[in-house]
């Protein structure tokens, strides 16, 4: 008896996932535990393992396709098994709003790409390409659309440089012949034909199509945004648009933390279990400072402030898929060792894609630390993770001249701290005092090892 494999639901807020990779293809044998496909939400990535044994009989979504959770993704059954009945009953209980003919559960491959997601890339759409002064006659536009011919680059010979039918016809003559299928796919997916195809007499076959613009051949590739990229883009843009953020930069004498770091390294050689990093120490200092400036440990909600009793510390983590900010809940309850361990744990989970999506929500953290010090960044303006009121950027440590007293100047290592705060939530004086407090905490930090 064949079984449907659905897109699992990951976390309360997840509505759909993108299939990032198929590890099996239609017709492959699968065993229990085999990875069928990898997928990601807007915040994390996962792998779906086979729970039954058999043959992958049908695949409904290709890689890159966004699948609503609980939707059928594929079918595993016995070789040659008739799955039409299964598909029919599955359809009856499922909510399938956008499925066209033919029936439920049928393949969502190429023909389903007409959704609005692709529209913006359609090079055939003259409104994109003809923009500016040069117009395109409705007839020219229609012929081009029918023939899947991109309008960009076509020189208009009509009145006032308008692209008219004959220009499109001319361009068509210069283009290799396309097979019917190639034409249709090119039209549907907005793909381009190469100068010469691999078919007879240079005919372009569907497989020859590329999404590369022939004018800038090979120069770029248009890729749809991953869910996560879309989300980051949206969040960052919203943050800069919707808040009054500015950044103060201040240096902290790093001799103390460097000394502690040396001690840790040494202790580790003697079996000390925790690799307490400078970042751990910065976070500890931040937690301590936040306890003294609760106003900064907050969310700005427009007409009110949510001031947190506990510190839920967000940590910006760079991963292959993009920036992630997991949270360490109740971080003020933790010792430096506990803090260090938990931070490593969540960062790791982010990198492997196994993080609980709920821990990635901006609302989950009360304050965020973003550390670019490792990369040698000397100063930056981190972007607040709204609705949080502030974020601390941690820079690299550089030596700076310092009055050592008695007219003697020496070079002292300084760590740059960049605090971006929402001026709606905090005023400059308070923010400065808070930032200075972090520096003081760093300079006076004591750790039992």
């Amino acid at each position: 008896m064949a079984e449907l494999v659905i897109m699992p639901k990951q976390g309360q807020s997840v509505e759909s996932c993108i299939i990032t990779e198929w590890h099996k293809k239609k017709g492959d044998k699968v065993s229990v535990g085999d990875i069928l496909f990898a997928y990601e939400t807007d915040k994390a990535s996962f792998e779906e393992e086979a729970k039954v044994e058999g043959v992958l009989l049908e695949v409904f979504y290709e890689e890159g396709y966004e699948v609503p959770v609980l939707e059928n993704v594929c079918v595993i059954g016995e070789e040659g098994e008739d799955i039409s009945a299964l598909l029919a009953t599955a359809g009856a209980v499922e909510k399938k709003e956008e499925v066209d003919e033919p029936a439920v559960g049928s393949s969502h491959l190429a023909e389903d790409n007409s959704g609005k997601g692709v529209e913006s890339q359609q090079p055939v759409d003259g409104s994109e390409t003809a923009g500016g002064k040069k117009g395109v006659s409705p007839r020219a536009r229609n012929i081009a659309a029918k023939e899947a011919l991109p309008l960009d680059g076509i020189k208009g010979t009509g009145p006032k440089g308008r692209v008219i039918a004959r220009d499109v016809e001319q361009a068509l003559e210069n283009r290799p012949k396309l097979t019917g299928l190639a034409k249709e796919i090119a039209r549907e997916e907005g793909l381009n034909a190469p100068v010469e195809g691999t078919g007879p007499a240079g005919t372009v076959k569907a497989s020859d199509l590329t999404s590369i613009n022939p004018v800038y051949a090979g120069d770029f590739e248009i890729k749809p945004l991953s869910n996560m990229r879309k989300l980051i883009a949206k969040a960052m843009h919203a943050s800069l648009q919707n808040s009054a953020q500015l950044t103060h930069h201040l240096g902290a004498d790093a001799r103390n933390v460097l000394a502690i770091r040396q001690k840790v390294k040494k202790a580790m050689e003697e079996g000390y279990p925790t690799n307490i990093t400078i970042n751990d120490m910065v976070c500890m200092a931040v937690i301590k400072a936040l306890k003294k400036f609760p106003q900064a440990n907050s969310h700005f909600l427009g007409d009110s402030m949510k001031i947190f009793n506990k510190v839920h510390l967000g940590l910006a983590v760079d991963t292959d898929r993009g920036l992630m900010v997991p949270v360490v809940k109740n971080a003020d309850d933790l010792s430096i060792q506990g803090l260090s361990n938990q931070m490593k744990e969540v960062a790791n989970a982010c990198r492997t894609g196994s993080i609980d999506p709920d821990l990635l929500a901006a609302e989950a953290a009360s304050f965020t630390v973003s550390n670019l010090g490792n990369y040698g960044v000397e100063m930056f303006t981190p972007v607040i993770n709204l609705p949080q009121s502030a974020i601390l950027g941690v820079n690299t440590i550089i030596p700076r001249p310092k009055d050592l007293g008695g007219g003697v100047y020496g070079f002292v290592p300084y760590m740059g701290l960049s605090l971006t705060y929402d001026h709606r939530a905090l005023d400059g004086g308070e923010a400065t005092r808070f930032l200075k407090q972090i520096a003081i905490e760093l300079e006076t930090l004591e750790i039992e090892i």
Partner: protein
Amino acid sequence: MPKSQFIDPKEARKAGQLTFEPIPVNQYSKTIEEEKKNFSKDDFLRIYHDMSLIREFETMLNLIKTTGGYKGVEYNHPGPAHLSIGQEAAAVGMAYNLTVDDFIFGSHRSHGEILAKGLSAIQKLDDSQLELVMEDFFGGVIYNIVKKNFSGDIKALAKRFLIYGTLAEIFARETGFNKGLGGSMHAFFTPFGVYPNNAIVGGSGDIAVGAALYKKVNRKPGIVVANIGDASMATGPVWEGLMFSAMDQFKQLWEGDMKGGLPIIITIMNNQYGMGGQTAGETMGYKIAARIGAGVNPEQMHAERVDGYNPLAVIDAYKRKQKILEEKKGPVLLDVLTYRYSGHSPSDASSYRTKEEIEAWEKQDCILGYEKQLIDGGIATKAELEAIKEEIDELILEMFKLSIDDEISPRMDLEKQPELIGDMMFSNESVDRMEEREPEVLMPLEENPRVKQIARKERFAFDKDGKPFSKMKQYQLRDGLFEAIIDRFYKDPTMIAYGEENRDWGGAFAVYRGLTEALPYHRLFNSPIAEAAIVGTAIGYAMCGGRVVPEIMYCDFLGRSGDEVFNQLPKWQAMSGNVLKMHVVIRVSVGSKYGAQHSQDWTSLVAHIPGLKVVFPATPYDAKGLMNAALQGTDPVIFFESQRIYDVGEMFHEGGVPEGYYEIPLGEPDIKREGKDVTILSIGATLYRALDAAKELEEKYGMSAEVIDARSLVPFNYEPVIESVKKTGRIILTSDASARGSFLNDMARNISELAFDYLDAPPVIVGSRNWITPAFELEDSFFPQPHWIIDAIHEKIVPLQGHVVKTNFTDAEQIRRNKMGV
């Protein structure tokens, strides 16, 4: 210009003087005792009844307009009500002796005349005739309404029918005499001999003459009365109507029983005001309107002023005038003096006259005065007259309530049936002849010299080798028109044609050559140079049931018949609730060579007016086929012809112009040349320049143009044009009309909307310049030329390689010209 009449210079130049006969003014002087031998008591009382009924009817409307109700029943009537309170004796006196065969035409102030004529008809028709009329009218709709719960006799029922039908019409109810589409100023009821009233001052002045022409030409019993106001005597169309009605030819040239004057009485319903203008003393110079008759013909139109405040005087006058008409000595002009107490309309504050004046006339009120005569003469008692009034009051109130009851008297539901009026604009019938009888002709068709001449012609322009026959040999466009028209003359006995130079000369452009030999005077004659009367009389002629082809010699003269073409001809089919049909084909010849007032293509003007069909053929085959279709139909057609191409041969229709009868449906464009790269849509004679352009495009630029001849403007089937545009993607439209406001723009808009996705460029218009038409030698700079078409294609549609423009079709020039208004 009949040769039978010799203009002798000796006679013409002789000294002498004109003398006039005295024109009687208020000469009636009979006493009531003397009249007793002419009228029974019933007659006397009926006159009283009819006047009182009109008075109450108008009073009711006045109260509705001024107080928002009548006898406690509220009603709002936003439409017009031009009341005739005070004029009742004039209306009843007029109608008293008329039968249903006698037709009356009226003005905007004609409720009284409708009711008077209706009541007179009810009196004269017997019960079975009356019942038949009521049952037949709109399938008995009105009859059923007034019959319900009524037990009186047929005449009483007919009275309810008359009042209800008129009132429902005034209140725009679908149950009105004209489905509520005419209203107060246009109400009428032909079965009682009541023909259209007219909201244009003097509108009936020429239309009624056409009705009289119909009666005369078709030997119909009865006379025609045109009730027009004293102020309308200043309007051109009324004067033209008078001139037309008094043409010498009726008495001098028409033959046999046709000899004699028109059976028409032009009645000046002289209430002494034209809106606020006082005619005698202020806005006119005649002092007494009857004087006008002296200026019209030697008989002075038998003109007379009658005291319109005494019904017996009016009756007496009509009796005498009807006798004159019976003797074929018409036309007659009657100046019926009267007075309206109510203003021009209820909104009129009467600021132009004194209270004393109104009161002085009220003291001599026609009903009060007559009442006194009846009582003093011992004909009726006060109580008897009171009883009549009470009965009237009751009847009017009941009919008022019925007519405003939305259940019983609904208005047209244009939401549920949005095309009701649209479906009434044209009657679209196909009728061989309007009457079954032998048409009067002077010779068998085949003996006609023109017919014989045409028989020797080549019906296709080219020989079998493609070489054109000589012009003289070719069957020409004018021959196509002639064949269609003479065919109809031999088919339809009611068919007549007239205009300037139609007889003897055969029309200025020789279309009618040969018709004079074929037809007696009364079927083909020369009219005065009076376009308003030419078209106006044709409208009256058609209204009564005849088919008629009036001719406007130059399109530029259409303006002279503006009201007739714009306000009358297109309106009456729908405005009558489809009671009337308007089978009038106006031939309009578009000139050239003769400058600014003889060279204009005004197709756009008439195409703009809803209710007219408009055609403009450009080939002999189309001219004959379209003329046949126009003459077979029942709608008004403005049939444009071009003087540039009367002599053109048939170059398109294979096998040439058929000898037999065929029709080309109005509204179908025709592809005259097939092509694939650009469509040229032309109207009228411009076709040939479009074809020249197509030839040049092919030879010089390798562009194949499809040329479509619109043939018709209204109606118009866009489908073949859209099909062509789908193929070519480009269209240019051209005609000789000045480009601004040209019908081409309307077509271009429709094409843009209907074929937008197929267009490679916006549709482009090439019309004449927005100038005066200059002299012939300069015309090429005014009318579209082949190279204009090519220049426009090059500039606006698709640049042509190596083309050098001669004319300026740039955007900048387009803006500049519009800024300048040229």
